[in-house]
């Protein structure tokens, strides 16, 4: 009924007009869209409903797993009355500030370093070993070190976000530069591009889709960096809320903090997609099958 895979492509009778074919295609697309949304909401409802029922019938222990209504109530309480550690918005702002600073500094440094090493064989041969070594360190273990060095404030979290983001963006930018089309490079050189013009007009644009792919994941990493930092030692932030909730065995509070982070990360991801689509308007849009 709503299945529009290629194998079930509609065969039109001879003499069907273009308008009819287009109308049928539009109908099929609408039906398909509805089916997608239906299943999405259905799965969400089953998940949340099942969770609620399981915890209210004591099949799972509410003490550990909480329940959707308890989490919603905790969120409502935090939003309207604030948390035990002060207003929710302030904590959220602190976490966002740390993540954004880490994200921007990390991605800018990653892009610059990736392009520099990608363009210069000697530099990359010398530094690649060190980058591998540092990259093999699990980032999370740096949290206590950074807190020891930079203190409980903003700087230590930004530093942790930075290292989370830097390596992802760096390796993608590096790879993107290396994958630049040799013909395009040769063409630009013969047309008269000098070193910096070549980098700016060919190397960076062709690395851009690689860089964007890494920016998508790395904003999530920036948040992880900030939260882990707060978790280990902080005065404000969502990570601190989780830590406090853990200390008072408040499962609903921990899940509520997770929900907040999910919303923020999804919003950031959406914003990134909008920016990327605007920058990548030169890319071909896929043609659709008429059925």
């Amino acid at each position, binding site marked *: 009924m709503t299945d529009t895979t290629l194998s079930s492509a509609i065969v039109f009778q001879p003499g069907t007009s273009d308008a009819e074919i287009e109308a049928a295609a539009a109908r099929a697309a609408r039906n398909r869209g509805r089916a997608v949304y239906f299943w999405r909401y259905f799965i969400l409802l089953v998940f949340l409903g099942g969770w609620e029922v399981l915890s209210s019938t004591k099949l799972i222990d509410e003490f550990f797993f909480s329940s959707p209504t308890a989490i919603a109530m905790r969120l409502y309480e935090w939003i309207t009355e604030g948390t035990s550690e002060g207003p929710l918005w302030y904590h959220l702002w602190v976490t966002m500030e740390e993540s954004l600073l880490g994200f921007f500094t990390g991605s800018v440094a990653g892009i610059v370093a990736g392009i520099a090493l990608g363009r210069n064989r000697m530099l990359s041969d010398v530094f690649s070993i060190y980058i591998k070594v540092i990259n093999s360190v699990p980032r999370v273990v740096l949290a206590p070190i950074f807190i020891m060095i930079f203190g409980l404030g903003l700087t230590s979290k930004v530093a942790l976000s930075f290292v989370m983001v830097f390596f992802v963006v760096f390796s993608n930018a590096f790879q993107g530069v290396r994958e630049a089309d040799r013909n*395009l490079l040769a*063409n630009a*050189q013969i*047309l008269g*591009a000098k070193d910096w013009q070549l980098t700016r007009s060919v190397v960076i644009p062709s690395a851009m889709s690689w860089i964007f792919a890494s920016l998508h994941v790395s904003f999530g990493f920036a948040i992880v960096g900030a939260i882990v930092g707060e978790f280990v030692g902080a005065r404000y932030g969502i990570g601190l809320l989780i830590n406090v909730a853990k200390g008072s065995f408040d499962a609903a509070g921990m899940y509520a903090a997770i929900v907040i982070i999910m919303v923020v990360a999804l919003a950031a991801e959406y914003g990134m997609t909008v920016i990327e689509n605007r920058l990548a308007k030169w890319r071909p849009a896929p043609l659709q099958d008429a059925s």
Partner: protein
Amino acid sequence: MNNPNSPAIELINVSRRFLTPDGKSMTALRDFNMSVARGEFVAVVGPTGCGKSTTLNLVTGLAKPSSGEVRVMGAPVNGIDPSIGFVFQTDALFPWRSVIDNVVAGPLFRGVPSEQAYESAHQWLARVNLSGHESKYPHQLSGGMRKRVSLAQTFINEPKILLMDEPFSALDVQTRVLMHDELLRLWSQAKASVVFVTHDLEEAIALADKVYVLTAGPATVKSVYPINIPRPRVVSEIRYDQAFIDISRTIWDDLRDEVQRGAARTEALVA
């Protein structure tokens, strides 16, 4: 050194060796001699993989000869010469730039003021019949239109020397003939010296003043044929001329042995 009587391009006893990834040396060109007069259209034909494209890279300065000498306008090649234009076999348009921004790239790289560069880009797009497509992106154009953008992108720099590496081999046969006429029209106005590499003998004869036949790799010049078909030529017509048929039979007799040797050599390498 820029003697106006010197040939546009000279390759004197040029050899070019490559190092393969496993460290072995491979000879692509051996004792290669070629001379292209100013304003002359030279076509180079030879079996697949014989080193035709290597000759072009030597002229651009993107590659250096292992021995021998390459001279452009009487002076030895040193880096990328600004008087050279190059049309590639595959698409070399910048996919993230619109048509007009692709055409304007050369002048902007060379420091022409932006207003002037865009004005001449509009003129060149009109000359290749692409007015009205300025703001489209390459992926929105057909293969023939993209090739015309490439020609405009190259010709806008007013190259004295035009190197073409099988530029039309990816096009269908009808489009290719149209592009041949287009190229001859642009060339007759621009008065550039052309080296046109192809594996299509008829294309070579239809376009060129002189056809170089290369041996199967390592490539060296086997023979040179002057093509005395009067200009202006209409490429879609002259292939039925008796003179055209005679010369293509003569050259093909010469080329056939090399094609067979080249094929045998490729198979031996694969085996």
